[in-house]
């Protein structure tokens, strides 16, 4: 910031520290601060509030840029949840089913995690809570077979939504990523242009690896959005800024708790305000 010595260096350092501690990541923070520099008016007041306002604007633009595309609703509208282990996919699938059922929609849930202990039973509880129909196979069966049957069931039952819960998997495991690709293809074979939404579920406590996860999962099945979970904790989930910017995908929902009602549509303004708290 040489030459602009009316900007308090201390303010800048504090803002940088805050953004880094919110997991925005070193390179994203650098870009934001340099953009801030170019937006500073030559004779503008540069107190802390002004700087925060400009930064909020920059981040807000990144987050809303990707949310411009309208998602067309199909019948059945097929949503696939994917992501690494433990991020909240099954819980989010259940919450989503619950919220859609509350809106009077007919929902089919697919238990495509056939690997993890009691994964099917866990989704079964959620299906019951949501009043949604569950399609499941035996433990250890082919996830694509479950997806196939679920798609057929959703069509036959004239369902409005089909939500496919997949097993957690690390993007570094190529065989598991191939399995995911196959699930996507099988669904596409049964329902026109499906999956209509592929949502990467990211835990708000995730650091820079969240960007790597997004890149790799996007290669397996093109992502249409992000669900940012566990935002009810102290983590800020700042990694979604880099993901939104690089992949052009919006955060669609946030998870704010473990109960059925704890899934909300993403509010960029609220999210950015949270970064400054």
């Amino acid at each position, binding site marked *: 910031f040489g030459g602009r010595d009316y900007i308090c260096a201390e303010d800048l350092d504090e803002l940088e*520290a805050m953004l*880094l*501690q*919110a*997991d925005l*990541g*070193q*390179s994203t923070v650098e870009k934001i601060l340099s953009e801030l520099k170019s937006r500073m008016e030559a004779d503008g007041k540069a107190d802390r509030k002004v700087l925060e306002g400009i930064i909020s604007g920059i981040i807000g633009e990144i987050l809303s840029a990707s949310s411009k595309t309208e998602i067309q609703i199909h019948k059945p509208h097929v949503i696939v949840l994917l992501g*690494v*282990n*433990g*991020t*909240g996919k099954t819980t989010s699938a259940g919450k989503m089913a619950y919220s859609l059922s509350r809106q009077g929609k007919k929902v089919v849930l697919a238990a495509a995690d056939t*690997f*993890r*202990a*009691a994964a099917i*039973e*866990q989704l*079964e*509880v*959620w299906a019951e809570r949501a009043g949604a129909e569950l399609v499941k196979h035996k433990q250890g069966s082919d996830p694509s077979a479950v997806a196939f049957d679920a798609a057929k069931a959703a069509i036959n039952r004239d369902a409005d939504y089909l939500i496919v819960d997949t097993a957690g998997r*690390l*993007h*570094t495991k190529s065989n598991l990523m191939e399995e995911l690709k196959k699930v996507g293809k099988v669904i596409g074979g049964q329902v026109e242009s499906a999956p209509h939404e592929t949502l990467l579920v990211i*835990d*708000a*406590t*995730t*650091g*820079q*690896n*969240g960007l*790597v996860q997004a890149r790799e999962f996007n290669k397996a099945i093109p992502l249409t959005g992000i669900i940012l979970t*566990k935002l*009810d*904790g*102290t*983590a*800020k989930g700042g*990694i979604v800024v880099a993901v939104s910017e690089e992949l052009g995908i919006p955060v669609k929902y946030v998870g704010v708790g*473990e109960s059925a009602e704890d899934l909300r549509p993403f509010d960029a303004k609220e999210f950015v305000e949270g970064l400054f708290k």
Partner: protein
Amino acid sequence: GLSEKLQSIMQKLKGHGKLSEKEIDSALKEVRIALLEADVNFKVVKSFIEKVRERALGSEVMQSLTPAQQVIKIVHSELIELMGSTASRLELGQEPPIVIMMVGLQGSGKTTTSAKLANLLKKANNKRPMLVACDTRRPAAVKQLETLGTQIGVPVHHVEGASPEQIAKSAVEGALKSGRDLVILDTAGRLHIDEELMQELERIKILTDPDEILLVVDAMTGQDAVNVAKAFQERLDITGVILTKLDGDARGGAALSVRAVTGKPIKFAGTGEKLDGIEVFHPDRMASRILG
């Protein structure tokens, strides 16, 4: 990687005579970036860089023919020093039953790791472990632990309708009678800011007097790792940490953050979804991984 970056910085100095503080600061800037990209906590990075800087301004770097390599060596050795230079053991020598309490945030890997640990101690240490399902909240959590217990031939204790405290207490009280010498308490995931649930853990601790309280942390955790570790440490005085999902490609800077803020050792590494995916933690391997 970091070595290449430092090499290129120091390379520019060839023929310019002695190194100055300016070059060292430029090199340290690269180390700082590397550590932040590896998810080491901002404040931990700050104090770590200070320590490295002090040593880097000494003769081992300033008068070296290969200053970049010297800086890397210092960073590496300081990382290992901070992480604890030797693998840390579990407290297994106590009066049976040994009680191990697993705690941590939602989804960090407690249930899976509880079963992995039971399996390891059964095979490698000839223990007769019992798994205890204290998670009465998460759908099918008890079923999950029971399924894993069946896979490894370890009994799972649960009491339908009882509170987590009652389940834990009854397990420890009945352990020896049922021929078990080691009890692993799997607790529900919770937020460190959930006062009610943190008090539940404090009560379980008082009732069962654990020999080990292990904080289970996901290796991909970012800056929040310090908040979580500090809170669990302050409320429970944890005895160690287990870092899970190290079979991924997260750099794992949370390891450094957790160690720096609690002073407690990382005792195990979770290295896979299957029940054999657990290893003793190696601080030196972690240091290399964090540096990328």
